[in-house]
């Protein structure tokens, strides 16, 4: 009975990982082996040619850098704007439960389906010439990550006893000084986890990027991969290599923030 449980759990793990493993093998196989029959799960001739093809001077290098820049910019902006709001909602006296109402409203904006706002956002950004630019997409991602930052950080701030800052402020520290020097160091793990989720969201996001970046120069990694899939002739090797590169940072970051996965994911951090 006990062995049976482990067997069942192992089967679940196998099903979860086999498709990912297959993607990795395709990215490493020579073209002749990629779709050989019988399928070669192990013992194939490995090559890094597809990685070189996709990223060495290939356009995937541009998409990769775009994705990195975009994730960094939008995360930083969301934290700079959102952390003070989270602190404000967690710490100050609000009349008529405004803190709760504003908090709920902020969270509800996160639940808007992207497809509802994408048409107006596309027209608005086109109007100001921010289509096909990283700046335009960074603004949209900031707006998307902001409710998440406020909601997550508010929870972390509420866990810090008020006496900590009050003592510092009695010693002559200003409110913002106390936040930066006393409170933020105490919530550092939570802040890091929040940042990780914002990075992952921006890195994984597809729909906004698909519509707002149509040119080679502005495309992100997911859009670049997708544009290869929908072409008539698919270069499976290069595409798989790009897919592997796209998933690695996410897996690394997510395992770093594992403790906070439940808290973050119940707010839909990975997928918009």
């Amino acid at each position: 009975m006990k062995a049976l449980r482990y067997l069942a759990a192992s089967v679940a793990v196998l099903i979860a990982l086999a498709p990912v493993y297959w993607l990795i093998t395709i990215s490493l196989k020579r073209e002749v082996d990629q779709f050989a029959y019988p399928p070669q799960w192990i013992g194939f001739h490995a090559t890094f040619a597809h990685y070189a093809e996709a990223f060495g001077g290939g356009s995937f290098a541009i998409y990769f850098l775009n994705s990195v820049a975009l994730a960094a910019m939008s995360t930083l902006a969301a934290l700079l704007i959102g952390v003070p709001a989270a602190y404000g909602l967690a710490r100050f006296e609000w009349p008529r439960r405004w803190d709760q109402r504003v908090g709920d409203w902020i969270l509800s904006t996160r639940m808007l389906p992207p497809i509802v706002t994408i048409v107006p956002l596309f027209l608005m950004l086109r109007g100001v010439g921010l289509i096909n630019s990283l700046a335009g997409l960074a603004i949209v991602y900031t707006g998307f990550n902001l409710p998440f930052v406020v909601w997550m950080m508010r929870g972390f701030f509420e866990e810090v006893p008020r006496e900590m800052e009050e003592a510092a402020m009695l010693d002559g520290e200003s409110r913002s000084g106390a936040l930066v020097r006393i409170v933020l160091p105490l919530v550092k793990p939570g802040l890091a986890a929040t940042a990780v989720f914002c990075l992952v969201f921006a890195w994984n996001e597809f729909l906004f990027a698909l519509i707002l970046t149509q040119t080679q120069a502005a495309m992100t990694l997911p859009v670049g991969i997708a544009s290869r899939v929908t072409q008539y002739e698919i270069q499976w090797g290069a595409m798989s290599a790009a897919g592997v590169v796209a998933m690695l940072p996410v897996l690394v970051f997510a395992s770093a923030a594992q403790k906070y996965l439940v808290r973050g994911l119940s707010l839909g951090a990975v997928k918009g």
Partner: protein
Amino acid sequence: MKTRRIPAGFVPEGLPWVAPSVTVLLALSIYPLIFAVKLALTGAGGAPTFANFTRLAHDRVFGAAAAQTILFTLGALAFEFGVGLALALLIDSLARARSIFRAAILVPMLLPPVVAAVCWRLIYNPQFGVLNGTLRRIGIHTSLTWTNGESSALASVIGVDIWEWTPFIFLLLSAGLQAIPQEPLEAARIDGASAWQTFRDVTLPLLKPAMVLAVLLRAMDLVRIFDQIFILTQGGPGTATETVSLYIYRTAFRFSNFGYAAAMSFVLLIATMLFSRGVMKAMRAR
């Protein structure tokens, strides 16, 4: 709570802290929403009209897309919940290596959705895909064309969603199980309750809040499904896997009919709001 009167000219101390966030969200969420209402209610000549909404009622493609979205949502949700719950209970019952199993099972959910869909393009391909190849190898000769077949496409796409998002239900329910206190479980055991009775009368009621939140969050995500279908089938073959999100996308960005797309998106918004109210309640209860 507080019923103190607010003095005239009173400005809450926290206002300047919150104002930038509220401003950004007004500009990026609320203004686009109002913009969308205006788009949907404006005719070709700029005159106000309800035409976009009346057209919606007679649009067969929209009807089919809505029906497929509902089918997709219910089908995927039923499987993801059943399998997710079973997996959470299974892993929770293991004596060792729990965290390794847990981490491995979570992988599909963490992948960029585009990458997950690409994996399944490689697997499903009827000519050289590994699925048919492996089936043939073990003696099952199938002519199933998975995402390429008119009748099998929707089920195949649902299959990918089950693979990708069962881990999400699993994660939330695992956390719910871990949060259940030991005392009532032990009390039930001392009273001589069977494993099934303990599960039904102790575990299940205590797990219910986590279940409700998991299902609502998943449902909210499923009704707006886009990425995976876009990569796997683009809504095809024909319109076999067209969902509301995909139809909105095509209407707006292939046919440049922004007004009609905006009108359709409100149907999706209302569907989402049905779930999001529940989500907010469930989250505040935690």
